[in-house]
């Protein structure tokens, strides 16, 4: 074994082998992807507050718990309407002399994926409350509080962004919670996080490992019976972070569903419209995102959700069937696209 007796030979062969492998499996594909992928038409490079917000995102180590990649598998469908692709990241360049490019794709999901967070949750009030103390909106959350991005003032100035934090989360401190510049920058960045639609005619990649259609069928057949469980799951996943588990919402931020005239009333069209396309008609509350459209709710989902909300927390509304919801959804869809 001559090579093991000659240090120059041994280490140059090993080093060269490693270098070649590195080039072929890392540098070459990296260069290829860097040069051959253009941003999607319609994507806007980060600028201003949003760009500064990304620096806050990196500095606070958000990527340690939140990924920003929608994989092409069924279970990631809740985080985006299509799988991610290289073009989604093509906009990203080196941040500055000191800091590298940051795709913040992440490798952990201690918290949910944020690729499409601006679509799922567009309420500024929600985000700011959540940043100040996540448990003020999601009781079970274990996310850290980012209190240092806010200050507590005796009285808010004219341009201050005041956050309606419940008193329980102020630990006895008195005054108005005002978002600092960094909080607003981070918010601006989070609100840019949405998937850009593909240019007309281009079909996105398929999600792999589709679930058996069994579940859908059973929900359809026994809509009335199954609605209880299904509706509760949908509510927990999509509605609870604002309207809360007890249906009472949060004062000054999110309206209650308990005893709500829309939930219990007869204007089913308005009700379905809000679920599907969001709502921003009341100044005293935050904006609601187009939850149903974002999550691709079917008439079964909407019916289950409505039935859950109409039968919980002492509500006593009339139950609905998927068939009648289907009609309203079609109508509401046309109305929304006409806007």
């Amino acid at each position, binding site marked *: 074994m001559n090579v093991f007796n000659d*240090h120059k030979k*041994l280490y140059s062969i090993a080093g060269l082998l*490693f270098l070649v*492998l590195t080039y072929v499996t890392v540098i070459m594909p990296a260069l290829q*992807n860097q040069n051959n992928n253009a941003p999607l038409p319609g994507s806007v490079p980060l600028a201003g507050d949003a760009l500064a917000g990304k620096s806050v995102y990196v500095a606070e180590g958000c990527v340690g718990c939140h990924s920003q990649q929608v994989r092409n598998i069924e*279970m990631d469908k809740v985080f985006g309407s299509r799988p991610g692709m*290289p073009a989604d990241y093509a906009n990203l360049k*080196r941040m500055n002399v000191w800091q590298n490019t940051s795709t913040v794709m992440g490798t952990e999901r201690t918290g949910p994926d944020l690729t499409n967070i601006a679509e799922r949750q567009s309420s500024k009030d929600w985000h700011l409350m959540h940043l100040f103390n996540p448990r003020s909106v*999601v009781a079970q959350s274990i996310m850290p509080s980012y209190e240092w991005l806010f200050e507590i003032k005796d009285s808010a100035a004219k341009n201050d962004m005041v956050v309606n934090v419940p008193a329980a989360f102020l630990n006895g401190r008195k005054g108005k919670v005002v978002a600092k510049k960094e909080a607003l920058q981070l918010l601006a960045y989070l609100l840019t996080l949405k998937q850009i639609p593909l240019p007309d005619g281009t079909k996105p990649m398929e999600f792999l490992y589709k679930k058996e259609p069994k579940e859908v069928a059973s929900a359809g057949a026994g809509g009335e019976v199954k609605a209880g469980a299904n509706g509760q*799951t949908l509510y927990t996943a999509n509605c609870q972070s604002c309207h809360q588990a007890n249906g009472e919402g949060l004062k000054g931020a999110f309206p209650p569903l308990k005893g709500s005239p829309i939930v219990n009333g007869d204007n089913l069209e308005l009700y379905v419209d809000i679920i599907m396309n969001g709502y921003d008609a009341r100044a005293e509350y935050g904006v609601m995102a187009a939850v149903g459209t974002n999550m691709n709710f079917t008439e079964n989902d909407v019916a289950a959700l409505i039935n859950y909300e109409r039968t919980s927390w002492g509500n006593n509304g009339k139950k609905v069937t998927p068939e009648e919801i289907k009609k309203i959804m079609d109508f509401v869809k046309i109305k929304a696209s006409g806007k």
Partner: protein
Amino acid sequence: MYNHERFKKRLLIAALTLLSISKVSAQAADNIIKTNSNSFGLWIFAGLVIIPLLFIIGKLYLDFKLQLKKNDEWNKEGTTLKFSQYLKNFDRAQIHTFVTLKKKKCCGKCKGDGGCGISKKAVGIILVLLFFGENIFAQAAKENKALSSQPGIIITIVLMLIPILLAVIFALAKANNAIRNFANNKKKKEAGTFAEYLQNVDDAALQQEFIKKDNLPVYNLTHSELSGNEKAEDSKGLLSNISDKHETHFTASKRKAAIRPTLDADITKLILWYLGCATFWLVLGTGIGEYLGIKFVAPDTDHISWLSFGRLRPVHTNIVFWGWASIAMIGLGYYVVPTVSNAKIYSIKFGWIALVCTNIMVIAGSLALMNGINNGGGEFREYIWPIMAFFAVALILTFINFFLTVAKRTTKEIYISNWFILSALLFTIIVALTAYLPFWQDGIGETIVQGYFMHSGVGMWFTLYVVGLLYYFIPQQINKPIYAYSLGILAFWTQIIFYTVIGTHHFVFSAIPWWLQTVAIIGSAGMIIPVVAATINFTMTFKGHWNKIINSYTLPFFFVAVIYYFLVSMQGTVEAFKFTNLLWHFTDFTVAHAHAGFYGIITFALWGGIYAIVPRLTGKEPPQHLVGAHFWIAFIGLIFYVVPLSIGATLRGLMWMDGKPFIDSVVVMFQYWVWRAIGGSLMFISHIIFAYNFYKMITKEIEPLDVKNEAFQQLGLPQK
């Protein structure tokens, strides 16, 4: 003989049954592969655990049955046969008694009662104990349900379980006594019949024989048959330090480190400084890790930006990576590389510069991260380049230093350790440059580089280097050459080929080109070759010397490292499969896996190395019982950390696949995060013990005065 044959037959049957079971499960696996697309990895994983377990259970069962049968046979044998057995086994005193009995024809009756009463009492106590035990358990369970969100409650329950455990042990001891009483009672009855038999037996031949035996002269040993009656005398002057006192040992005493020719004082100092710095960073880094683990269950512990989870997490990982492991590895390298080259180190100065540079990097990097200065969020790549540059300098200097030392070696061949150690340094320089040069990092390129960096950091730096250290320490501690050079060669080259290409498996199903993901998965499977080769090599070196593990305080550490090297690497391969990736990716399973690898392999191996060489450098051994405490607390802590976290992560992955609400999966994880915090605390405690041991090994203690030497000293006659 007969029984043995039967046993063998049964074992064969059991083996066949097992085979058929595994066949069935293989079929089941087939089915699952068909319906669930691919769960092959899980099945291999389960198979690895279940098949040996079934074997052990089967063997125990057969043993047990055999014993039961023997007992049965014994009972069935006729009383006469038994009595003749008793008669045969009479000792001299019993023979004498028997003979006198027969001579005097006197009678006496044994009375056997009272035992039953005692056993009744004991049963009563057990029942009471069991009742209370159950009560306590029931309460604990209730509290757990109602207040499961309170870590304090859970810790309290754990503390409460300790006395319960003691109570159970007490109850078992009592039960054992009761069972004995019961058995004795039975035997007493038998003794009664036997006594009757003795009374009435009228066998002239037997009596004659016993009388003959009784009259035989009595032989007793005088205990001086071999030594004679001479007084002991150490005519050759071999004995010293004779003590008549016998000390009580609570722990097994292990072999002392062999006394070796001392190294130069300057390299000794350098190595000790390396290891001392590493120890400091270990305690600090894992202390931070412990705090982070607590934050999972108590997120509102503090609201200070510098101590927030997002900023501290990379501080923890980078400190243990660069501060603890890298510095300790290079420090041990300064012992191993010159030793196996049989040459002096090329330059001590390079060593000092590299040490200072690495420390500057860790200090500056930690402060920067806590201040919110982060390179871009890629794991292990959080230090910005001006800080990382210090490490590059350290690596390059160390490589040059080691290379020039190898160049002036006095052995012909380069020892296997030095292939691994120097290659690790060389590759890491390339890895660091690839990861920090800006030319190929835009867009998705950054992610491709990131996958490569974080995995090569683990595989080309830590694993490669530590495997190199193991190739020195294991043969050296066992005092036997490594099993096979050729396996080492195979492991070396295949490790380079496969490990380099698998980084992308952290981004399976992502936007990274599919061919690259495929290469990574294939490479992950290929890792079986170097891992199995190295494991065989190490375990075959251990073979025939397993008892040395028990007698040594360093070998257990190396042994754990070897076992974990195999387990964790295989687990890594399995994790890259399709189904397991769907299940475990993005969950805490990755965290558990990383800790099992970094702690079980790297850290245990480094501890073994430190305990092996520091006593040689300073001539001082660590307190052995504290080394034992360190080992066990760290090992149990690791298991508490890894196992619950893996279970929780699996549940979480299943919930995600079922499309359950995300927040529900957070709630499910809570109790597993509590267990992780408990395991982490044990690990941290063990590090404090380790730091103390290290201190004991290097500190200049005042030696107890040797009165004899001192007397001669005072007489002006110094002893050497």
